[in-house]
């Protein structure tokens, strides 16, 4: 079903107190714009700046006042042009009166979509980003609070939602702080009287993450009774609370259609056929197929009908099994993303019942175990853990979080040696422990009185952001490289330099207390991840051409500071580069250069005179990629090579590859590989294809909701 489109007015504070942060604000808004263009491209967006010295708005012209509010972009469909505009936000010199701005924003929405709830075919939303440092003018009559109430009522009446992000800056000064507190309490007043959400952020990272860019219409996973006992059933609805958002699944690109054909869909369709193993030409039609399940060495066929009649068929429902101590279900048992159980909206008794039980659970430190069958026909039962979620806002009802917990079959226990039983040499001594204590205490991400850093709610996914930025960059320039991770978002990936420098002493002391030494013998095996079984030694031994590696000690490799893979001794250069540890760059570089060298060798080949060298290089590349856990680097190259060998009539070289049994790197050799052993070999046979199963097919919202249903 089509989502109702959203009409959003952005209200940005550009008054002097915001000047230092305008860039961050612009970045935040551009994230919002990019995601909107991607997900909800029919949404509309208007832009209003306040605290600006130029006034430009209808109200000012019509009724006067509203001097520092400028409508920069009337409400219309989101477009790229906004991004350019955002990069040069002006610096205003006037006071940023957010109440004025709100009124102007509401006026825009009403003029665009009509008054009252009639304009309900769109979701009307106001998005206010402010420093809340400017003094709000006293209204002509009544108090500021009264004015807030009037505005809030209007919002409610016209069905508008409000999101406020307050950027809190650590500025001293009593006057300024008084204004700030007054403003914040004014803003919070909105959330009691209208559908408003106020978020106070401190760091730019949080600001960046505060924006809920993507609008998802929530779907209930379940509506029905929470059956405490057969005697008492509380009406509840169940929603998702967390659900992992992934990089969108991209379509496969076909290059077959002529490049200038603008109507070409460029899509690649996949066709699946089940064939008999004995007779590869025989295709088995779907109705002749039957599911088989492994049972020990046997494969037991079960027809769909048998399966349907015999299988576990639970009745839809949400039933309480028992209450128990919180400690009986430890935190690490939580299996999946979290749901939330809310009382049926508007049902006072359900709200009270949930509230009473939740509060009693909180008081007595109990949790509840429930059996969840979300819908009729569900094939699995789900074991859920209810924990109370007492609402902090008086407008929001109490609810329960529901986490999926494991069944007996899902748990495996291993014994681990007690730390107390380690020999004294592996136990920290007093000064080491003290250093660790200090370190843990000082390196605090949630110090009292300050914003909690890296709060999941305020931590944007850097990968997603990078994907959308990259998409945008490629729109402008199809050959654009993948942009680096946003420097602000690197604070999610790496420690905040500010905290590090604040606590340098504790950190250094901790580090200096422990002698951590990399075991060089193992280290040779792999640079970043170590495995207990490295197949390398046997792999290498198999082929003479790469044997020279074993003669070179780690030290001698590392000693040679090779910086490129040359044509003279490519294998040695390559290996020496892999062994360099002074930077992370060497491994990708070595692989890249090796690939290029191989391609060059083949391109310049005359009667196959370079084949043997190219083959040696390829072998070295393979073992290097296995060793460095970069199977995809090799596998993708092999696939390209397979195509190249066919098209460029290099098939004699491919025959060499086949004769050396040079397959793709399979999962057994490097876990990150995308192919199984069998699939890895397939490349030889076909010279093409042989790819592993694709990314999981796109899952729609409902399926995600019913994630438990198999």
């Amino acid at each position, binding site marked *: 079903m089509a989502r109702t489109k959203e009409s959003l007015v952005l209200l940005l504070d550009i008054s002097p107190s915001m000047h230092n942060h305008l860039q961050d604000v612009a970045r935040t808004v551009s994230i919002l714009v990019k995601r909107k263009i991607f997900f909800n491209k029919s949404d509309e967006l208007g832009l209003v700046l306040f605290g600006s010295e130029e006034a430009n708005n209808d109200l000012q012209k019509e009724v006067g006042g509203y001097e520092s509010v400028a409508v920069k972009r009337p409400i219309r469909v989101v477009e790229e042009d906004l991004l350019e505009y955002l990069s040069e936000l002006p610096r205003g010199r006037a006071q940023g009166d957010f109440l004025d701005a709100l009124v102007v924003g509401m006026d825009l929405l009403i003029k665009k979509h009509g008054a009252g709830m009639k304009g309900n075919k769109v979701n009307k939303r106001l998005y206010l980003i402010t420093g809340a440092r400017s003094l709000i003018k006293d209204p002509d009559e009544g108090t500021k609070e009264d004015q807030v109430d009037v505005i809030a009522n209007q919002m409610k009446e016209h069905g508008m939602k409000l999101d406020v992000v307050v950027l809190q800056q650590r500025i001293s000064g009593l006057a300024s702080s008084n204004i700030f507190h007054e403003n914040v309490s004014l803003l919070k007043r909105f959330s009691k009287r209208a559908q408003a959400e106020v978020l106070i952020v401190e760091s730019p990272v949080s600001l960046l993450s505060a924006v809920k860019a993507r609008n998802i219409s929530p779907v209930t996973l379940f509506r029905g009774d929470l059956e405490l006992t057969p005697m008492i059933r509380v009406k509840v609805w169940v929603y998702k609370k967390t659900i992992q958002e992934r990089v969108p699944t991209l379509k496969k690109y076909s290059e077959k259609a002529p490049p200038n054909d603008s109507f070409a869909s460029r899509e690649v369709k996949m066709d699946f056929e089940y064939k008999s193993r004995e007779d590869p030409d025989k295709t088995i039609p779907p109705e002749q197929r039957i599911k088989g399940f492994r049972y020990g060495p046997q494969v037991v066929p079960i027809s769909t009908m048998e399966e349907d009649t015999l299988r576990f068929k639970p009745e839809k429902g949400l039933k309480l099994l028992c209450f128990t101590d919180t400690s009986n279900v430890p935190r690490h048992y939580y299996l999946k993303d979290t749901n939330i159980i809310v009382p049926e909206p508007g049902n006072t008794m359900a709200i009270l019942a949930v509230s*009473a*039980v939740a509060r009693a659970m909180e008081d007595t430190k109990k949790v509840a175990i429930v059996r969840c069958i979300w819908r009729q026909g569900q094939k699995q039962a789900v074991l859920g853990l209810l924990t109370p979620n007492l609402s902090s806002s008086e407008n929001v009802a109490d609810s329960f979080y529901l986490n999926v917990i494991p069944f007996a079959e899902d748990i495996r226990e291993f014994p681990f040696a007690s730390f107390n039983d380690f020999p004294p040499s592996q136990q920290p001594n007093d000064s080491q422990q003290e250093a660790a204590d200090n370190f843990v205490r000082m390196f605090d991400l949630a110090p009292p009185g300050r914003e909690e850093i890296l709060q999941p709610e305020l931590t944007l996914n850097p990968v997603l952001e990078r994907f959308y930025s990259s998409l945008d960059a490629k729109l402008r320039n199809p050959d654009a490289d993948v942009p680096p991770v946003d420097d602000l978002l690197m604070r999610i990936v790496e420690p905040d330099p500010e905290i590090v420098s604040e606590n340098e002493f504790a950190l250094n002391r901790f580090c200096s207390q422990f002698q951590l030494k990399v075991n060089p013998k193992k280290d040779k095996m792999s640079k970043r991840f170590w495995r207990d079984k490295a197949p390398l030694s046997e792999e290498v031994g198999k082929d003479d051409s790469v044997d020279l590696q074993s003669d070179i000690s780690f030290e001698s490799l590392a000693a040679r500071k090779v910086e490129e893979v040359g044509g003279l001794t490519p294998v040695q250069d390559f290996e020496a580069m892999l062994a360099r540890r002074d930077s992370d760059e060497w491994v990708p570089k070595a692989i890249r250069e090796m690939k290029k060298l191989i391609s060059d060798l083949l391109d310049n080949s005359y009667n196959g005179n370079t084949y043997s060298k190219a083959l040696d290089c390829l072998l070295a590349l393979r073992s290097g990629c296995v060793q460095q856990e970069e199977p995809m680097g090799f596998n993708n190259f092999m696939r390209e090579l397979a195509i190249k060998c066919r098209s460029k009539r290099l098939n004699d070289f491919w025959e060499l590859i086949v004769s050396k049994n040079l397959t793709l790197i399979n999962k057994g050799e490097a876990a990150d590989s995308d192919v199984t052993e069998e699939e890895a070999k397939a490349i030889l046979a076909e010279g093409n294809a042989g790819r592993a199963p694709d990314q999981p097919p796109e899952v729609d919202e409902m399926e995600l909701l019913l994630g438990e249903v198999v």
Partner: protein
Amino acid sequence: MKFFRLPSTGIFTFLFPAAILLKIFPLSFCTRAERRRTNDSIPFAYKLQLMDLESDDLFRDEDDEENSNFSQDKEATKEFVVYMIDAGRDMFLQIKEEDDEKKRPHFSTVVKCILESLKTRIINSDNDEVAICFFNTREKRNLQESEGVYVFNVREGEDLDRPTARLIKDFSHVEDNFENEIGSQSGIIPGSRENPLYSALWVAQGLLRKGSTRNVDKRILLFTNNDDPFGSADPGVKADMRRTTIQRAKDAQDLGISIELFPLSRLGEEFNISIFYADMLEFENEELTQFMPTVAEKFEDLTNQLRKKIYKKRVVRKITLMVADGMSIGLSTYALIRPALTGKITWLDSVTNKPLKLERSYICADTGALVTEPLKRFQTYQNEKIKFSLDELSEIKKVTSVPLRLLGFKPLHCLKDYHNIRPATFLYPSDEEISGSTCAFIALYRAMLRFQKYGVAFYGNTRSPQLVALLPQEEVTSSSGQIDPPGLHMIYLPYSDDIRRSEKLHMSMDGPVPRASKEQIDKATAMIKKLELREFSVYQISNPALQRHYAILQVLALDENEDLPETKDETMPDEESMQRPGIAKAVQEFKDVVYGSNYEFEVITNTKGDEASKKRKALTDVAVKEVGNYNWSKLAETQKLQNLTVVELKYYLTAHNLPLTGKKEVLINRILTHLER
């Protein structure tokens, strides 16, 4: 008393799974439930269930993209296990259990226990091979023709083979005819030079000869309650027997076979490991004191014990935790909890029951040409087709090259209940690659416990880089062993993109929403107290769908006309007990204060389901009626199907019970396909 302590060298056995293992497993584990087992007012009790379905495959999670990393050594490694069971007379003594009056000989407990473990193995580790070998038997059955050793097997299959449904079935009846067919014998017969323990080790070693130790873990699991196997031997040969048996065990271990002892209780005395087994398994004196074995009294003990031991502990991955530039701590990761699924489906030809091969081809949608797997992907954005190479896509996900980077610490209360997206991973220090890791890890771990904090780190794996919480797990031991191991649980945290404000969807805008009064909360507390299960543990509840699935498989695999055994759905509440007066009263009181005493709950009917099916039926009726108004084959021939509306097309599909999904072209194609036949 101290229990389960690995010898100091023991920790390295985790790191070198293929290394020789000398371990003894006193029956020292109990579940949370047992730990808290009390006899006081529990409103209703769940029976502790047997672990039918301990899983292995599920811990490899190949479906989960991120977790495919976790599968590293699964393919390469399998286990060959010989269950070596003492069938001496003592094993058949009736042991009276404390809490119930039932008597069950040890032998029976062991058989039942192994049965459970076999079932688990059959389901989860396709490639594991097992053999069952009794010693101290009257009859003999083994390749070496040794006296007193009986290798149990079924007609088909080798002695050491993958477990089959048949083996399980036959083994479950082994007790019925044991005395007749195999026979028990009391250890060494005075005057005889036969040494069944020695022979059994020799036979087991023979069974384990196949396969290389490089990719197979070979284990002997030894079940006995006789701590003095040579007690009855003649003094003249006793020392010799002892020496040769120890030598035999040593030889086996030198061949990479690990021997694990499961001591069972003696009648009226402790199993004294120092009499013989400590020497056989080469324990030093000081280690011995740490290894005071508890004896298995009950079936549960042994099951729990075996459950922990059924698989070799496997490191999923080795990673380093980077604390600061130049300081990294080596870690091993373990997957302790992963949802179990019904196994992978193999498609078969229903005529021959032979497995089918899936062939995939790529077709260019524009030209219809067969293409090779494309290396480029695209995304439509702003009406442009934006192309990405596979390398670029993986580059996007590669935001860091550091596997695990510590970012700081937070107090425990910052970790909310909804900060979860997938099963946690367990971290334990390892000195293998970076010496000194264990020491630094322990220091951090203890500091975190002391200050009630958890670590926040960035997990930079290339599939799904994520923020994680490193939650310290305090070691919990009970009088019977370790319950929770010490280490860190790595909990995957959501990003802001992943969290929804669902509770605020139904925000009240007309003033505050009602909150429960003190009285209501008090009544709720009273009700909770009545409905409380103090000893709850997730071990009590097995997955009903899985149980059912494997019960079906087992019956079908045996291919006998047997009735499907009942599988109990342990997820169902004990509604009967819930109606008991004491509980009912508390529930009623709660109901009265919240809903009022006159409130009647609607009778639950599946009205919705009924309505839906009625509606569906009505639609079908309409479709059947309407479908007659069109000449479908003619429409198809003249290619006029295109002119019909989707609604009209669906008449046909509904009337013929075909799927209704897809776009118009798909529907038309479906109709055409259907018409052709």
